């Protein structure tokens, strides 16, 4: 019904470029998540698609029809049939929940309370809520009502602007599931913008990473996570261990051993990228740590451990790397500080030609091992 296509969108506020040359296609009936840090231009992209602001160049097509082309045409927001869920919901405080839900329907349809109940049920809310006022609902319930309101006129496309911000973790999960269910039930195409990696990866059929106004990579979540286009994307999408190494014949040699590469074509001086959960550890105490004989993995000493409940992150000290390497470990028997473990890497790893130059890494305190990633969740 409605594929969304953005062609070479550029937008700026005054002299400052907010979006530059954004190309994006959201196939009909799917959800694409736009992941970006604050200030990356993700809300601006939504506002361009919505028509609240005009882009300096490029075009927006919905269902094959041009709704905006810079310098040529600009369909006002109300003529675009695009649903919009604002941050924090933006429910009308002067209307009841049911009146909010039916707000966008023609006058006669606004009297049909059955439709309001139907929509409330669609987003997983008790129809009894219809009589309440927005301020009597919790944050998560308000977001659901906002989605029900956006879906009521059956728009082919819905835009969600950080719809789960400010909700606690458990409420987020439930609300996300309710949103995905409701969107799928109506077959609505959707774009969701967020700064939350887990949210983007778990909700999007595709995820686009927006950095400084450029859409750096758009891919299926697993591809984006396992084969990020560059180190910046790798580090933004999740935690990453980056180690200097040499690649040849599909193998990279680095302080964690000789590891198979995702891309066999890479060769020469590289930065190898390993996800912390790829690192497996087993107790090495049975053997003398000094012996170093016949083991497959690398011997490491645990320097610290952080407990997160279902899993823990242990910091490992390895020869050849001055900074500790984090490993995400499931389960109960997690080694503590001072213990020795044997470390192996599961699966293939990504490697990027080293921008090289000792100069390039001179600013970094450890030229041989760059450990990056966001703060633990």
């Amino acid at each position, binding site marked *: 019904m409605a594929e969304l296509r953005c062609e070479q969108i550029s937008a700026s506020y005054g002299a400052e470029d907010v979006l530059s040359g954004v190309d994006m296609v959201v196939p009909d009936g799917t959800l694409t998540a736009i992941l970006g840090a604050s200030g990356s231009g993700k809300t601006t992209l939504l506002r361009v698609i919505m028509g609240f*602001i005009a882009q300096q160049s490029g075009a927006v097509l919905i269902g094959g029809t041009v709704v905006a082309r810079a310098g040529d045409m600009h369909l006002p927001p109300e003529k675009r*049939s695009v649903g919009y869920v604002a941050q924090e919901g*933006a429910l*009308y405080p002067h209307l009841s929940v049911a009146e909010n839900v039916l707000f966008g329907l023609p006058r006669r349809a606004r009297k049909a309370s059955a439709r309001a109940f139907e929509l409330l049920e669609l987003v997983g809310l008790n129809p009894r809520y219809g009589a309440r006022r927005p301020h009597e609902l919790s944050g998560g319930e308000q977001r659901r009502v906002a989605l029900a*309101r956006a879906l009521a*006129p059956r728009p082919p496309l819905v835009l969600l602007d950080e719809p789960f911000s400010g909700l606690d973790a458990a409420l987020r999960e439930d609300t996300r599931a309710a949103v995905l269910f409701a969107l799928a039930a109506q077959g609505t195409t959707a774009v969701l913008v967020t700064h939350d990696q887990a949210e983007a990866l778990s909700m999007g059929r595709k995820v686009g990473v927006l950095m400084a106004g450029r859409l750096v990579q758009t891919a299926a979540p697993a591809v984006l996570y396992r084969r990020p286009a560059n180190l910046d994307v790798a580090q933004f999408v999740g935690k990453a261990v980056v180690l200097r190494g040499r690649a040849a014949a599909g193998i990279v040699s680095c302080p964690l051993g000789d590891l198979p590469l995702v891309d066999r074509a890479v060769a020469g001086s590289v930065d190898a990228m390993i996800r912390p959960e790829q690192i497996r550890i087993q107790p090495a105490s049975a053997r003398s740590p000094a012996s170093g004989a016949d083991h497959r993995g690398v011997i490491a000493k645990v320097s610290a451990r952080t407990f997160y409940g279902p899993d823990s992150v242990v910091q490992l000290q390895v020869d050849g790397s001055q900074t500790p390497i984090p490993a995400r470990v499931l389960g109960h028997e997690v080694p503590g500080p001072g213990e020795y473990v044997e470390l192996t890497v599961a699966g293939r790893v990504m490697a990027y030609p080293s921008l090289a130059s000792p100069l390039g890494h001179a600013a970094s305190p450890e030229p041989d091992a760059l450990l990056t990633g966001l703060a633990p969740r």
Partner: protein
Amino acid sequence: MSHATGEARLGAALGAPLSRTLLVICIGVAAMVGLPVVITAIQAFQGGASAAKTAFTGSATPTLFLHTIELAALATPACGGLGLGAAWLVERTRVPGRRIWPLLLVAPLAVPLFVTSYAWATLSSSFTGFWGAAGIVTFSYYPIVFLLVAASLRVMNPALEETARSLGLGAWGTFTRVVLPQLRPALFGGMLLVLLDTLVEFDAFVALKFQTLSVNIYAQYQLGLSAAGAAALSLFSTLICVMVLLGECRLTGRTNYTRIIQGAQRGVVRHRLGRATPVALAGLVLLVAVSLGIPLGLLVHWFAQGGQTAGAPAGIESLWPATVTTVLLGASSGLVAVLLALPVAILAVRHSGRLATTIERSVYLSFALPDLVAAIALAYGASHIVHFLYGTVVLIVLAEAMLFAPFAVVALRGTIGLIDPALEESGRALGLGPVETLWRVTVPLARPGLAAGGVLVFAFVLGDLSTAQVLLPPGLTTLGTQFWADTGTVAYGAAAPYAAVLIVLALLATYVLMSRFGRVRGLDAR
């Protein structure tokens, strides 16, 4: 401590801890503002039933009563419409000149009504009577609505309107179904002020020879018919005022739309006027031409006339002292009014409940009497009770501050409503007492509102005549009383400089007002 438990118990009943000190201060302010009503009632009773009866029957009271009601019934919605329309054009469309329009649209509020009414009367004799009075009130008071509605539009969450447009609503649909309901408190609040002010307005109508209740009361005093009778008549307007206040409470209800601004503010999506641009511009030009152009035109006319008749205008030597008196009087009254209004505004914003609302509304009792009657009541009260105040500058400053305190409350309430309570709470958490929090957190943040309230009162004091005539210490003159004296002797050329200085001061006040009203420091909504 018994004090602490009392505070807690009272707070629990109202839903938020209500400081007993704040409550006592606010009740004190309300009592002070209501004092003239009490004194007037005493005066009326002293005259006995016969005096009151003579006053009611011996005059055309029912007709005058009707005049007053008709006037208010016409002017109030007209002000509402003009103020709302102008505010929407300026804040929500791409009409050209959006920076200068607010200034020009608010300026008529600061131009003294007696100057405007002289201008209208001079322009054409057909502007006297009802239509003239209605026109003057409308074109002088619509800025009250404009100020409040424009401030409210500036802080409205843009996402509400954006969502409406995403749901297919155009400019008109968004306005009627989303913006207007959100504006209700500001619109009704502004119209309430217009209504109450119209009921007791008097200065404006004398020049027009238009008879209202206030004008008749003035005649009763002037002719020395009966002070008690005049007092009894005045209580009539008190009754109307109280009825209006009660009605307004029901109409507005208890809905609180105040938004607490969070996160980065982004601009609103302004509507393109397209081909309607010339129409919108013409409307604004016409509005400004009528409301501001006519009084300014009168000045030019008078100056021209004064030039023709030649000779130094009489009384010009008192221009400087009158200006100094007026500015000092206005400034000190503005300051005192803000001090009176601050606790009331805090009570109104931070506490909901019947008690808080009642106290806030009781400040509007300053509209219960025509200014002249209130001034006479205060003079009477001072001469009998606090004799040392009688005939001093202190009394007139207090009187002006009390009369115009509601405007200061409105300005302060708008600003304080925007301050996140968490800011004050973190002050308390850091060990500051309530007074210190007020001084170091609330007042600095609310500074634009304090300035706006003070300047608003200043502007009204410029335009006030009755209070000055009754309470000004002997030997002092204001620009207003000089203007009045000169127009009374048909010395229009002599009156012109006074009117000119008044208007210059008014325009200065408008500039300060427009840049401060409804804003919080560090949180510019633009």
